[in-house]
């Protein structure tokens, strides 16, 4: 086994505590925007893609920085993304099947 393989788990580039705090602030701001946008009735159906994008942004930040996927071995990302992709596919397929869109 090479050094690289062993070191693949050594976390040296993790964010600092301040960066973790900044990410938390961003997450709170996005949540506040989500709730604020929700009350803007003039947006109509545009609210759906906006909320989905904001939610995806929060998901990305937590998964990449708090769960360290950005810094860890890509195999972990693959394992997680595989399950996530199947889950998303199941949701979309069932909604299409039952005409829930």
């Amino acid at each position, binding site marked *: 086994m090479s050094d690289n393989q062993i070191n693949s788990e050594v976390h040296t580039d993790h964010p600092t505590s301040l960066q973790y705090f900044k990410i938390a602030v961003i997450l709170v701001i996005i949540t506040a925007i*989500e709730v604020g946008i929700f009350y803007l009735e003039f947006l109509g159906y545009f609210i759906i893609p906006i909320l989905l994008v904001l*939610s995806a942004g929060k998901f990305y930040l*937590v998964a990449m920085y708090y769960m360290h996927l950005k810094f860890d071995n890509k195999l972990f990302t693959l394992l997680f993304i595989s*399950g996530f992709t199947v*889950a998303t596919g*199941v949701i979309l397929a069932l909604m299409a099947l039952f005409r829930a869109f």
Partner: protein
Amino acid sequence: MAQSEIKDTDHVSDVEHEVTSTGLNHRKMLMWAFLGSDCMFFGALIATYLVYKGKSLSGPQPIDVFDIPVTSVSTFVLLMSSMSMVLAYSALTKNNMKVFRIWMISTAIKGATFVGFQVYEFASFSKHHVHVECNESHEMTTFETEVFEAECKPGIDSFSGEYGLKPQTNLFGTTFYTLTGLHGAHVTLGVVWLLSLLLLSFKKGVITKEKNVDIDLAALYWHFVDVVWIVIFTVVYLFGVFPFS
């Protein structure tokens, strides 16, 4: 690198840096595989909720019971718990056990607070109260209109009644309680896990800067329940009371 060298480096235990075919810790790999499978589990529950959304024939609907400001606060609490969890892990990797324990207890308290919010929410939904004025026109939801038409007879000025949302009430109740209840169960399990690790950290040599995989795994699980809630909050709560849906 020889196995003996790995063992000698920084007094790291065999368990922490075991030699594996991938070079990755098996427990961590298993945790990610579990989280991937748990994605499918929650995906199926979310799909069921969405498929049956708006198909309930009776009883309260999401717009009747959801209280977005309250759920926003509980979402904030869970997001903050994720921050304190990652700060606990960060403190451990810096060998700062005191700060690590403070953040761990903080995370557990926030998790318990989130569960408390959920219990409060479930209790208030199960005792949902409807009040309609029979002689004054006012904005009503579909369910309130049903109550109005059923109860407002000549001579009656107003009507109040309890129309609790329970799992057996309608399709919305069944799918909502199953989805959010199982998420709440995940959070509860997480709180127990965190408290167990907190207690173990007082035992010398069990949780150290080098032996941090246990905390890493618990942190991954904790962040996962957070990302699941991020999806639930948008898809179930915000879309649930979306006026155009």
